[in-house]
């Protein structure tokens, strides 16, 4: 693996972002709107509920972290879609560039663009709604890492899906986080779900993150066992997603789809 080639993929994303408001704005605009919306809702719930529960860290914190997960995932997929939109596969894959180097470039690009979104969310949530991340403490950091890994895994899986099904499958990407969210227990405990949904939830690393972040907000210690399960699951999904993408790529090279990607299928 040559990092120079991965740097080239990253540089391409930088060039695309530079001087393109249409690409820069989505990095923080939608997550910013989410923070504002849920920030006011949290304040309202604080005002009308008799119990002395602070909804800001519970709800707004959850939204912020869920949006961070989505941004990581979409950071990977959007960088990939840039090559779909500009019909660049032939140019890239007829070079010494390997699949690992290419995907690493997408992931690095996602990390950097997601940090922009995270910074914007933190700025809004702390300055306007008084959300302090110190409330979660250092014990929350490994759980953030799990969210990061899960976002990468879903992003790589989604890119594999588009590579497999053709450019029109871009549509599949956008609702993916929404499909997962009911099972991820972002806003409510897993125990709220019916048994079959709890079973699905238990294989999603995100659900362990939100369960434990709620525990931390409630003043309890997070579960080390839950963290371990979440990390193992997140790494397993990364490996599965990498296996899926590599398999789809090899199939595309075998069938010739890479060279004629805009045709979607070779039938």
């Amino acid at each position: 693996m040559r990092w120079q080639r991965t740097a080239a993929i990253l540089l391409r994303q930088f060039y695309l972002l530079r001087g393109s408001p249409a690409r820069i704005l989505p990095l923080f605009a939608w997550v910013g709107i989410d923070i504002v919306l849920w920030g006011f809702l949290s304040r309202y719930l604080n005002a009308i509920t008799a119990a002395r529960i602070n909804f800001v860290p519970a709800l707004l914190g959850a939204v912020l972290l869920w949006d961070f997960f989505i941004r990581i995932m979409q950071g990977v997929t959007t960088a990939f879609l840039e090559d779909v939109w500009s019909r660049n596969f032939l140019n890239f894959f007829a070079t010494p560039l390997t699949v690992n180097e290419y995907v690493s470039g997408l992931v690095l690009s996602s990390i950097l663009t997601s940090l922009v979104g995270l910074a914007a969310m933190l700025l809004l949530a702390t300055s306007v709604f008084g959300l302090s991340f110190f409330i979660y403490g250092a014990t929350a950091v490994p759980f953030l890492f799990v969210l990061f890994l899960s976002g990468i895994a879903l992003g790589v899986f989604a890119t594999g899906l588009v590579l497999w099904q053709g450019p029109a499958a871009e549509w599949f990407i956008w609702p993916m986080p929404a499909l997962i969210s009911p099972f991820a227990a972002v806003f409510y405990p897993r125990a709220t779900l019916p048994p079959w949904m709890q079973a699905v939830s238990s294989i999603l690393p995100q659900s362990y993150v939100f369960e434990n972040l709620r525990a931390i907000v409630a003043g309890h210690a997070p579960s080390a066992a839950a963290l371990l399960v979440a990390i193992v699951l997140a790494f397993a999904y990364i490996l599965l997603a990498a296996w899926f993408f590599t398999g789809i790529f090899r199939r595309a090279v075998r069938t010739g789809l890479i060279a004629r990607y805009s045709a979607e299928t070779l039938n």
Partner: protein
Amino acid sequence: MVLSVRDLRKRYRSVAAVDGVSFEVRRGEIVGLLGPNGAGKTTTINMILGILEPSGGTIAIDGIDLAKYRSRALERTNFAAVYAQLPGNLTVEENLRIFGLIYGAKHLSARIQQVLTQFDLDRLRHAKCGVLSSGEQTRVSLAKAMLNDPQLLLLDEPTASLDPATARDIREQIRAFASAGSTGILWTSHNMYEVQEVCDRALFLSHGKILLEGNPKTLPAEHGLESLEDLFIAVAREPLALERS
């Protein structure tokens, strides 16, 4: 030998797109790969570029087996094709820098300046590729193809969208590039005049097989025909007769 292709095959279910093709490209040599539409030229080039897996046979670039050492082999190549324009949403210089990094071009900034000057692209260096004329885009693709001083250069109809004057300049530049260094070039074209002017050797492909091979200047007479264009038409219309001869 910069390219050695042995018994190359590509089958799509029952259809043989390329059927046991073998040929070589030597250093400093320009080889024309000719044939009617659907003959298997682009399929062959795609397999040499590593974006299409052969059903059988071997490809070695500069002695390196492409199937086993894809990256190492492709570091020694580059290509320009009329159907593979560089991303239109980046400038000429940005595209050259990205592909220069990917190909591991040495002294990249200086090399970018050299190819910009060589292909008269200096004034367009900050222009987005998408706003360039098709001729200018072709020149950018060729500039990209020269960035890493490849041992093997694959050119799929490189002058298809150029006016005659520019096409002649480009042909001369590519000819000089092949003569000056150790680069071998595999060139496809439907312009038979161009093939006679540029290529040292021509391979006629029909139905996935090499039907004829030889010097494009003498090949027509060897088959009792007046011009290379007549030979091309004969290959396209009566391949079996030529195969028997």
